[in-house]
């Protein structure tokens, strides 16, 4: 087995991109850290010929769901939406507009874009993770990317940043 340090080296950026798309930039660091800590703990038990990328993405997905659930549990217990920095409409930063739009994608599109486009998982593996068929994942990720590109094209038409 490769030393875990090289797993972090090989997949660290990918997992971060996925976490950021799934849970948003505010919680992405936590999701990343939870993912790699869990992966490190379980690493010696990973079978030799395993698909490390798919394994990491499965852990990331579980941690992301945990995070999202605990966010909404906090909202229910306090009877209000969680306080966090708005990811929308800061004219000084187009990045935060983008993540705002990602957050408003239908969940299947967001997850399909995250695991397939950003995480590099094939459609079939992504479907195993988020449900549905490989074909429905293909459509969801294409639709999600198309929506994001529409946002991008709209923003690059003359509105000063």
């Amino acid at each position: 087995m490769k030393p875990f340090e090289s797993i972090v080296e090989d997949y660290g950026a990918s997992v971060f991109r996925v976490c950021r798309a799934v849970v948003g930039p505010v919680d992405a660091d936590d999701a990343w850290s939870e993912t790699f800590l869990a992966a490190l703990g379980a690493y010696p038990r990973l079978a030799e010929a395993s698909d490390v990328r798919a394994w990491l993405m499965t852990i990331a997905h579980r941690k992301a769901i945990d995070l999202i659930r605990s966010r909404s549990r906090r909202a229910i217990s306090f009877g209000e939406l969680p306080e966090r920095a708005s990811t929308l409409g800061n004219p000084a930063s187009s990045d935060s507009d983008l993540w705002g739009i990602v957050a408003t994608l239908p969940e299947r599109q967001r997850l399909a874009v995250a695991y397939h486009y950003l995480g590099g998982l094939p459609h079939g593996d992504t479907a195993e993770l988020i449900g549905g068929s490989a074909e429905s994942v293909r459509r969801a990720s294409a639709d999600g990317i198309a929506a994001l590109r529409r946002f991008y094209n709209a923003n690059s038409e003359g509105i000063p940043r």
Partner: protein
Amino acid sequence: MTLIPQELKRVESAHLSQLKKALSFSAERDGILDVAYRTLDTPVGLLLLAATTRGIVRVAFEAEDYGTVLEKLAELISPRILQSPSRLDDAARELDEYFAGQRKVFDLPIDFSLSKGFRLSVLEHLKHIQFGHTESYAEVAAATGRPKAVRAVGSACATNPLPVIVPCHRVLRSDGSLGGYLGGLDAKQTLLALEDAA
């Protein structure tokens, strides 16, 4: 081919470095970091230092290819390896002191997991050769109870997983010539000169 907005993919390497550091810290805290390592710049080149929770387990010279060294550690000790300087703080400090001429004895817990049998007995004996002193391969062989095993002593020295700290550099040929050294003869000479033992 679909183009993905670059912002979706952009990750700052400084940010990733920060995340990696925090990961090492958490892993150490949770007791799941089986092997921690760092590198240290010294007069005998960049050294890789690795430690288990039992102690320092490996010292490697630059010429040994750190990728291979870490892969061997993954195979022989555990694959739960991360760069994590804090566990190696004492070792790094003592090595700095040694190279600065301020320390003659290392006071570090050592993990001898990578050695066994006769090679382990040789290393155990080497620990007793003091700063500034040397022994011949033949003397070491005699001290371990196998006076004829001179070549095996040479081989044990050549495969010492903890050079500098376990002083195989203090072993010379009977005629006073240097013999061999895993880190290269320049390194052996540097260490002996540092100790004024050449």
